[in-house]
């Protein structure tokens, strides 16, 4: 392909980026640095100052802690699954992969809402408990329920990148290590795990970022009891109608996520760039 061709093909992408990514970002920054007064926009940093209020900081902290927990659980649950899927011995991998992907074809909202019917007081699980003589439990509307919803929704985003890295890693190296007398444990910790780090890094970013900014999961499964930063932003735009403050929170969240992204990829700096799928 010639150079001119390449440039031509990039035009739609550049136009798209400009209109739908760059321009909105500029608008968000503009809104975050202004306040409305008598129909006019005045420059002000008060939106950011307002975020320093302990009430709002608690919200931010809770979101980050829950998202981190969710990410850790996704690694602990997702890595073994990806490992099994990628191993040569496992025959039914197509079917297993299908089982993990099938729920993602369903609407996100519907998937999350169905957990309400499973966990509620007269829900599926409690009916089951009663049947076997166990007491009913309150499982809904707390942080654990929110965490469950996050892990459930974001787990595939951890499994898939790790799986694709593991599957593509050079089997020759592993066989060589085995030939040279490494036991399975050494093979795993000194070869397989380090080789799969790029996949884990992209898995971590793909889980951590949506988990930090989610608002629908905390609304439905958390009963809005413990506000997350996503709820806070939603409230500014939809209820309080304070777009300026909502933009300021969004900017802070974006910077936070960007920082975490930089940190994650720095860990990964010796490897090639992260592989998504």
């Amino acid at each position: 392909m010639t150079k001119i061709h390449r440039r031509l093909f990039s035009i739609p992408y550049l136009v798209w980026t400009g209109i739908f990514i760059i321009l909105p970002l500029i608008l968000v920054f503009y809104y975050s640095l202004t306040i409305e007064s008598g129909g006019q926009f005045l420059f002000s940093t008060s939106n950011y100052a307002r975020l320093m209020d302990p009430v709002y900081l608690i919200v931010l902290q809770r979101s980050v802690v829950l998202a981190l927990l969710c990410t850790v659980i996704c690694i602990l649950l997702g890595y073994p699954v990806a490992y099994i899927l990628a191993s040569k011995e496992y025959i039914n991998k197509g079917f297993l992969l299908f089982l993990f992907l099938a729920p993602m074809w369903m609407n996100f909202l519907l998937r999350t809402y169905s957990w309400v019917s499973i966990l509620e007081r007269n829900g599926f699980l409690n009916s089951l408990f009663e049947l076997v003589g166990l007491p009913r439990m309150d499982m809904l509307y707390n942080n654990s329920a929110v965490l469950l919803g996050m892990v459930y929704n974001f787990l595939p985003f951890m499994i898939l990148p790790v799986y694709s890295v593991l599957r593509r890693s050079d089997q020759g190296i592993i066989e060589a290590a085995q030939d040279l007398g490494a036991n399975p444990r050494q093979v795993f910790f000194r070869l397989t795990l380090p080789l799969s780090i790029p996949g884990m890094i992209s898995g971590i970013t793909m889980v951590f970022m949506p988990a930090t900014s989610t608002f629908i999961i905390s609304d439905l499964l958390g009963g809005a009891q413990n506000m997350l930063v996503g709820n806070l932003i939603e409230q500014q735009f939809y209820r309080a109608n304070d777009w300026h403050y909502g933009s300021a929170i969004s900017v802070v969240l974006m910077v936070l996520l960007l920082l975490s992204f930089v940190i994650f990829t720095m860990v990964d700096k010796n490897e090639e760039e992260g592989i998504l799928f």
Partner: protein
Amino acid sequence: MKRIILTLLALSLISLLSACDNQDTLRIYNWGEYMDEDILREFTRETGIRVSYSTYASNEEMYARLKGGGSTFDLIFPSDYMIERMINEDMLEQIDMNNIPNYQYIGESFRDLSYDPTNQFSVPYMWGTLGIVYNKAMVDEDVDSWGILWDEKYAGQIIMYNSIRDSFVPPLRLLGFSFNTRSVEELQQARDLLIEQKPLVHAYMGDTVRDSMIGNEAALALMYSGDAVYCMEENEVLAYSVPKEGSNIWFDAMAIPKGARNKDKAEAFIDFLCRPDIALRNTEYIGFSTVNMGALQMLPEELLANPAYWPTDDIIERCEIFLDLGDFAREFDRAWTMILAR
């Protein structure tokens, strides 16, 4: 040559996108679950006017979408205080009542209310109160005070509404204040009461509260009267009460936003909704109280005997209407965030 093709492609894409947004279609923006959607089809059958229908969950959401610009709706259903605000901000078209002969059926007591003193901008749609829905199997005392929402006996059995203004009604009335207060001091006292209540609350919900109460998930819930009628029809153990400290009485009306492309069609549809047989079908379907005297005469006795559907005069007397809070709405938002955040 390539560039020309690309430009053509881009142009055809743009025209394709705008073609989806048909100019002749009447675009209605209503609350979720707030109309019998068969009525839309019937309107199209009778008049040939095509209709597109989308929904919102709160006045504020609707306002934000219209204020943001770029959306072109022909008909909206704001509540009293939101109508007041939108009139003040010049966001509504004047309605030509000559096009709405069925306006004659709107009851006298629903006309010319303070939010739109001469009904230039709005035609009443539904009305109701805010109260407590309770499960008679779990609550065996009289529910006549907001105080029951602070009773530790019902810890974990209380559902509140995830809506700023509605949630502040119980504490402000318990304290003897108006819920249209603009006093920071009064608001703070109410906020502290809600914080005190938080450990007893099962969840703060949106529309899902109806399913939860029908499914016997909790004993008490803050709810609009029309939703309560719906719940009581689905589950006979439920009852509704408007506490003695007083509550909110509200009116939702139909209005045409500034810049609507199909004002005449919107007026035709408003007139259609005011036709007594249509108004009757609508109110029976959604459970909210009608403002249409023609429909009222045809309603079954039992519905009129239900205070959730048709409140008695002494209930109405102790109720107050929401007024637009102006900039003070931000103080309410801040207080509400402080409650949910901790």
